[in-house]
């Protein structure tokens, strides 16, 4: 069989600017950025996408994505994204947030953007630690996990329990789609990519709030090599944060969040009053 003309089958997506990123070696933040870029490229939406960067290791994401970008205050990306989406409802708006950003300081904004059913997509990178500030305990740090601020291991008696974000949000009526993925292997990466694309598509179809949680790592602050950290993540985080679809309103047979919510409240007179 003669060699065919060589062609590129894998390369940097166009919607990621050709700059070196500041992430530590092997940090999956980079993989997730690429998946978003691939989704934007594939859907041809770079010109109509606005991304909102968090405060966290991904703070400089505004320098990496080729679409318009906004750097939000710590935890407030959902509020910022909400406003951008309200101003430009035809744009695709996503926020990119870490666990500290999304689930600690930004908890109220997260829950409320979700319950409002904002048509935005939240990309949630959960590495069970505060990466940027040097490895403090995160709301998702596991019991007994040693961090800078849980030096003897997270003591649940004083520091309490981790938050499982998908589980927390799934009951809110504004939520259309929630999936927890990881990026430790090529096949998981491809699954994560499909999830992100699906979330963007749901947003385009105005189905409601979408969030993809990526269970990640932080080899630097976990004090491991990148490969070790993937192992640790698989062994400890995945059973604590099980992968899977936590909500998919379309799979449940609804067109969007409003249909589903109405169905749920069909015995409430005031909710059904329009139908009268």
């Amino acid at each position, binding site marked *: 069989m003669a060699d065919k003309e060589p062609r590129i089958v894998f390369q940097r997506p166009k919607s990621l600017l050709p700059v070196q990123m*500041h*992430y*530590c*070696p092997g940090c999956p933040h980079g993989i997730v950025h690429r998946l978003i870029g691939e989704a934007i490229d594939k859907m041809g939406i770079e010109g109509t996408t606005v991304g909102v960067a968090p405060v966290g*290791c991904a703070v400089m994401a505004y320098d990496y994505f080729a679409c318009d970008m906004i750097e939000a205050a710590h935890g407030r990306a959902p509020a910022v994204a909400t406003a951008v989406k309200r101003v430009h409802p035809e744009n695709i708006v996503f926020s990119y947030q870490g666990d500290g950003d999304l689930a600690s300081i930004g908890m109220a904004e997260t829950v409320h953007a979700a319950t409002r059913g904002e048509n935005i997509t939240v990309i949630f990178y959960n590495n069970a630690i505060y990466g*940027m500030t040097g490895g403090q305990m995160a709301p998702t740090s596991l019991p007994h996990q040693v961090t800078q601020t849980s030096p003897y291991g997270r003591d649940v008696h004083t520091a309490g329990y981790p938050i499982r974000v998908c589980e927390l949000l799934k009951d809110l009526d504004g939520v259309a789609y929630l999936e927890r993925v990881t990026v430790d292997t090529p096949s998981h990466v491809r699954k994560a990519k499909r999830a992100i694309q699906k979330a963007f598509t749901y947003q385009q179809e105005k189905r409601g709030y979408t969030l993809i949680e990526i269970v990640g790592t932080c080899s*630097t602050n976990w004090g491991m090599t990148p490969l070790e950290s993937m192992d640790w993540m698989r062994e400890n985080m995945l059973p604590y944060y099980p992968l899977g679809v936590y909500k998919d309103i379309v799979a449940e047979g609804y067109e969007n969040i409003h249909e589903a919510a109405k169905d749920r409240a069909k015995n409430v007179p005031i909710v059904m009053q329009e139908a009268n």
Partner: protein
Amino acid sequence: MPKDYSKDLKIIFAGFGGQGLLFAGKIVAQAGLLDGKEVSWLPSYGPEMRGGTCNCSVTVSTDPVGSPLVVEPDVVVAMNQPSVYKFIDAVVPGGLMIVDSTLVPDIPERDDIAIVKVPSTQLADEAGFKQLANVILTGKLYAETKFCSKDAIDAALTKIIPARKAKLLEPNQKALAMGMDL
């Protein structure tokens, strides 16, 4: 007339994160303190996030320390190539640059300062002091500047290596001595 470093010494330790530069700086500051000097130690926390360059400013002086940020170092101890490029011009005339020559292939010329090349990473590897290139360089720094008493710098190590890491003391002492003897 060469500067009397036992009166006043301003140093920058520079290299990659993980090379132990902050620790080296701490040895020097602690030694100064044990000699009853005024000392300060300041890490730089620049724009790089991880794996980038890392440096720290140390001052040991008989006078109170003004700005702990050293901008005109008497001595720069450099453990990687970018640091050499970045700091060589900052060294005051008559000053000194100590370079880990295992890691730094290229040293620009400057004839108004002394440049001391120590293959410290290689020496450390050979001597079985993995990761103690920084301490070897600190020993060399001492030998070149005599900024404090010998007792003080020896005691400094004991002081800053915590009890629970006591087994690290000996190799550190050896590395320091090796640096002094180079």
